[in-house]
C-alpha cells in the first residue's frame, strides 16, 4: 500500500476516524492492528520477520531492565544489537559480500562458486532495524526507561506512518506519545491534511514527472551524451528530494491526523551553505542516528584530529552502505566524506580567499555562492547514487563532457518540451516556497499565513496535482532501502 495510492488515503481516513472514536487507552490496539495490516500488505512473510525483529528488541529491553551487573547488561545489549544487525546483514548484504568476495578472489586468480542466498529484501528493514537498535542502545545507556507494555512497544516499532521509510523515530520522542495519546485538536488535523497534500504534490507532480526524464537517461546511458546527462543529474537531485521529502511530509501529516508528532526529516537541504549543514538538513533522522549511535561511540571529535577525521569517513562509508548493497552507494558516501574532510582542511584557505575577494562585504552574495557550490557538489555525488553500477557511472561521466547545445538534444525520447517545462516550473515554485518559508515545516508555515494566502496556496496545490500529477503509482525511492 503506497502512500501515493487511493487505497492508502482511504486506509488513513478509516484508521484516523476509528482511532479518534476509541477511548485513548484502547487506541494502541487499533493502531497496532492497522499497522500490521499495512505492513502485511507488502507481503505477509515480511510481517513474520518484522514481528521477530520486534520481539528481539522487546526482550532485549526487558533483559536490560532486569539485569543489574554491567557485564550482563553489556552482554544483553551486544547480543540484541548483534541479532538485529545480523538479520539486516543476511537479508541486505550477504549476497553483496559474496559477490564482492568472488570478484576479489577472481582478481587473485582464484575461481570459486559461491552460491547466493537471493533473499527478497523486506520492505523497510533498514529503517526498522535502526529504530530497534536505537531503543536497545538507549535502554542500555539508561537514556530511556524500558517499555514494558508489549503492545505499546510493538506499536512503536510498527506505527505504519513511519514503518517503511522513516523517519527513524527515537524512543524518547515517540513512545511517550503512544503511551498517552493527545486530545483531538483541529489545528493539528488541518496542518496534517495540509502536509499530506504538500507531500503528494511533491511526489506526484515533481518527483514522478522528473523520474520520466531521469529514468530514460540513466536507464540508457549509452544513448545520450552531454546535455541530457547533465540535466538528468540535476533533475535527479530534485527528484530524490521531492520523492523522499514528499514521503516524509505524508508520514508527518498522517501522524498528525492520528494525533502524533514525528520528527522533521528534511529542512530545505538545497539551501545549505556547506556540506556539513546539508547533512543537518537532509534525512535528519538518519544523520542524527549515525551521529548518536556511530560517530559519538567511535569517539566523535573528542579524539585526535586524525582519528576524528577517520571517524567522519567511517560514518559516511557506512551511511552509503546503509542506502544500498552496492559499491556505488559506498562511493557516494565516500564522496560526501571527502567533501567534509576537504572542507575541514581548507577552512582557513577558504576564509582567506573570501576575505581577499571581499565577500564578507556582500554576505548575501557569499551565502548564495556557497549554496550554489554545495548544491553542485551534492548533485555530482548523486550521479553515483543513481547510476546502476560503476560501469554506468563512468560511462555517464565520460559522455557528459560531450555537450551539444541544442534544445532538441536536451529532450530524451518520450519527453516533450511541455512535460519538461512543467517540471522546471515546478522546481522553480518549490525553490520559491523554500526561500519564502521561515521554518522547516511547510504546513506550519502556511498555517501561520493569512487565510486568503493559505487557501490560495492549497487550491494551487490541489489544481497542480489534478492537472500535472503522474498517477502511475510509482514506488518511493527510499522504499528499496
Amino acid at each position, binding site marked *: 500500500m503506497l502512500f501515493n495510492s487511493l487505497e492508502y488515503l482511504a486506509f488513513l481516513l478509516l484508521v484516523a476516524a476509528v482511532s479518534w472514536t476509541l477511548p485513548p487507552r484502547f487506541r494502541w490496539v487499533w493502531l497496532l492492528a492497522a499497522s500490521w495490516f499495512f505492513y502485511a500488505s507488502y507481503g505477509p512473510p515480511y510481517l513474520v520477520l518484522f514481528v521477530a525483529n520486534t520481539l528481539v528488541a522487546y526482550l532485549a529491553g526487558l533483559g536490560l531492565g532486569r539485569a543489574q551487573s554491567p557485564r550482563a547488561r553489556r552482554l544483553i545489549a551486544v547480543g540484541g544489537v548483534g541479532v538485529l544487525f545480523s538479520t539486516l546483514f543476511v537479508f541486505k548484504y550477504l549476497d553483496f559480500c559474496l559477490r564482492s568476495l568472488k570478484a576479489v578472489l577472481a582478481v587473485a586468480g582464484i575461481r570459486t562458486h559461491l552460491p547466493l542466498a537471493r533473499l527478497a529484501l523486506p520492505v523497510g528493514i533498514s529503517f526498522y532495524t535502526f529504530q530497534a537498535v536505537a531503543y536497545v542502545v538507549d535502554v542500555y545507556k539508561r537514556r530511556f526507561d524500558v517499555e514494558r507494555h508489549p503492545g505499546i512497544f510493538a506499536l512503536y516499532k510498527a506505527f505504519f506512518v513511519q514503518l517503511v521509510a522513516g523517519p527513524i523515530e527515537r524512543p524518547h520522542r515517540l513512545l511517550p506519545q503512544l503511551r498517552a495519546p493527545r486530545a483531538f485538536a483541529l489545528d493539528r488535523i488541518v496542518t496534517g491534511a495540509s502536509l499530506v497534500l504538500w507531500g503528494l504534490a511533491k511526489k506526484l507532480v515533481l518527483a514522478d514527472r522528473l523520474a520520466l526524464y531521469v529514468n530514460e537517461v540513466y536507464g540508457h546511458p549509452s544513448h545520450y551524451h552531454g546535455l541530457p546527462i547533465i540535466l538528468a543529474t540535476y533533475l535527479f537531485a530534485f527528484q530524490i528530494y521531492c520523492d523522499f521529502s514528499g514521503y516524509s511530509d505524508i508520514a508527518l501529516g498522517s501522524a498528525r491526523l492520528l494525533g502524533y508528532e514525528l520528527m522533521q526529516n528534511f529542512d530545505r537541504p538545497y539551501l545549505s551553505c556547506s556540506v556539513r549543514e546539508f547533512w543537518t538538513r537532509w534525512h535528519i533522522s538518519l544523520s542524527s542516528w549515525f551521529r548518536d549511535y556511530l560517530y559519538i561511540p567511535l569517539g566523535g571529535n573528542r579524539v585526535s584530529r586524525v582519528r576524528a577525521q577517520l571517524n567522519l569517513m567511517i560514518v559516511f562509508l557506512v551511511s552509503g552502505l546503509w542506502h544500498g548493497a552496492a559499491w556505488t552507494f559506498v562511493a557516494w558516501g565516500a564522496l560526501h566524506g571527502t567533501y567534509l574532510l576537504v572542507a575541514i582542511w581548507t577552512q582557513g584557505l577558504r576564509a582567506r580567499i573570501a576575505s581577499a575577494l571581499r565577500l564578507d562585504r556582500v554576505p548575501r552574495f557569499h551565502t548564495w555562492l556557497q549554496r550554489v557550490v554545495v548544491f553542485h557538489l551534492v548533485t555530482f555525488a548523486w550521479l553515483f547514487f543513481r547510476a546502476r553500477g560503476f560501469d554506468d557511472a563512468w560511462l555517464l561521466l565520460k559522455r557528459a563532457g560531450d555537450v551539444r547545445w541544442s534544445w532538441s538534444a536536451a529532450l530524451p525520447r518520450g519527453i516533450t518540451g*511541455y512535460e519538461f517545462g512543467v517540471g522546471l516550473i515546478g522546481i522553480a515554485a518549490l525553490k520559491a516556497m523554500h526561500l519564502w518559508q521561515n*521554518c522547516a515545516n511547510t504546513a506550519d508555515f502556511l498555517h501561520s499565513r493569512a487565510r486568503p494566502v493559505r487557501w490560495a496556496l492549497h487550491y494551487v496545490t490541489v489544481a497542480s496535482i489534478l492537472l500535472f500529477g503522474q498517477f*502511475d503509482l510509482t514506488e518511493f525511492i527510499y522504499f528499496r532501502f
Partner: protein
Amino acid sequence: MQAESTAPRPVRRAPWAPPCFFLGLGLLVWGLYWLGKPHYADEDLRSDLQKVRDLEEARAVVVGASHGKGVDLEQLGLEGQNLSHNGQDLFEMAYIARSASERAPKLETVFIALSYFTFAFDNAADDRRGVRDRIGRRIEMYSAFPRAAFIPGDHAEYAKGLLYPVVTRDHFRHGFERNARRLWRFFTGGETRGGRRTPARSAAAARPEAPRAAPPASAETPPDPAEDEGLDDPEPGDDSAGGTETDPPPSNDPTDEPPVAAGTKRERPSTKAHTQKNEAWYARHAAGRCRQYARLMDSMRAHHPNLERDTYNELVGLVHALEAKHISVVLVTPPYLSVYSACFDARMQRITRTNALRLTQTTGARYVDLSTDAAFTNKQGFFVDSDHLRQNGKNVLAQKLAQALHLR
C-alpha cells in the same frame, strides 16, 4: 543538529471557514471541468456516453477493436449499440461488456469481435523505453463506462477516468493551449487562420492517440499529442489520407480505424484518390499493419508474461458471466483481404481460431469466422483498407452473420 518539528500555532477559527474552503475547492474542480470539457469531452466520448444512455433499450451490443465496427447491428435487424473501439484489447472488451450487461436490462446478445491480435494484446503492457504509450486510452474508457471495478493494475487510469476531463492524459496541455488562444482572441478580437475546426477533426485532434491525418489546417488546431507519446505509427491508410499510387505506404496506428464518425451509414465519396487504390496499395497497407501489429504484440508479450493465457481466461470469464445472466455470446472474426491474412502472424491466426472453437465446445458461445470467407477476401471494393470494411462490406457481413446465426 536536529530540526525539531514545532506544533502548529493555534489560529483563530471561524465556523464558516471549512464549508467555504470546500466550496472553493468544488468551484475549482468545476472550473477545471468547464475549461477542459470542450477539449477533452470529444465526439468519441460524447458518442460513448450517448450509447451508454441508450443501452436501456439495447438487445445486442458489439465489443471489439476497430474490426468490430464492421458488425452493423441495424443491418442485422437488432436494436443495440456497437461499443467497439480502436485498439480495444480483451480486458477492455470484457470491462465494457460487463458494464453494458449491468446497464442493459433487455440485453440478449453480445457480439465479441476477435481480431487476429486479440489474444496477444494488452494496452497496459505496451511499453516503449519506459513510456506506456497505449494505457492512456483506458482513461476515456473508464470515463465513458464507469463501474465500481477496474482492470487489475489500472488504479491510476481508473482514478483519472473518474475525474476526466479534469484530469487528462496530456496534463491539460490542450486545455491550456486552446484556452490561451480563446483568451487571446477575447482581448484582441482577432480571428485565427482557418476558422473553427470541424467536429470530426476536432475529435481526432483532441484524442491523443488519434491517427495523424493531414497537417493542422488552422492555427487553432492543437498539435497531435501522439507526437508527444513518441508514437512512430505510420500515417493513415484511409481514403481521407489520399492513398494514391505515389503516396507512401499507408500506415497508421494499426489498431485505429480510419476516422469515420461512429454509426455513419454513408458511403465514402468516390474521390480520385480512392479510385486510384489498387492491389499494390492494399498490399502495402496490409504489410504496414502486420508490421505494426507484430511490434505491438511483441512489446505486450514482453511486458505481460502469459498474455495469451490471460486473455483467453479473461474471455472465458466474460462468457461465463454473460451466460449466467442468460445473455448469449457470439464470437466473430471479421473478414479481411487475403493480403492482410497472408502477412499476419500465422500462429496468432491459429490461436484465435483454436481459442474461439475451444470456447464454443465448453460454453454456449457461437463462433462465426469470416476472416477467410471467399465472399470478401479478394473484394477490395468492400474494404476501406486491407482490414476494415466499407458500408457495402458491412452489409454483406450482416447478411452472412444473419445466415450463420439464423436471425432471419
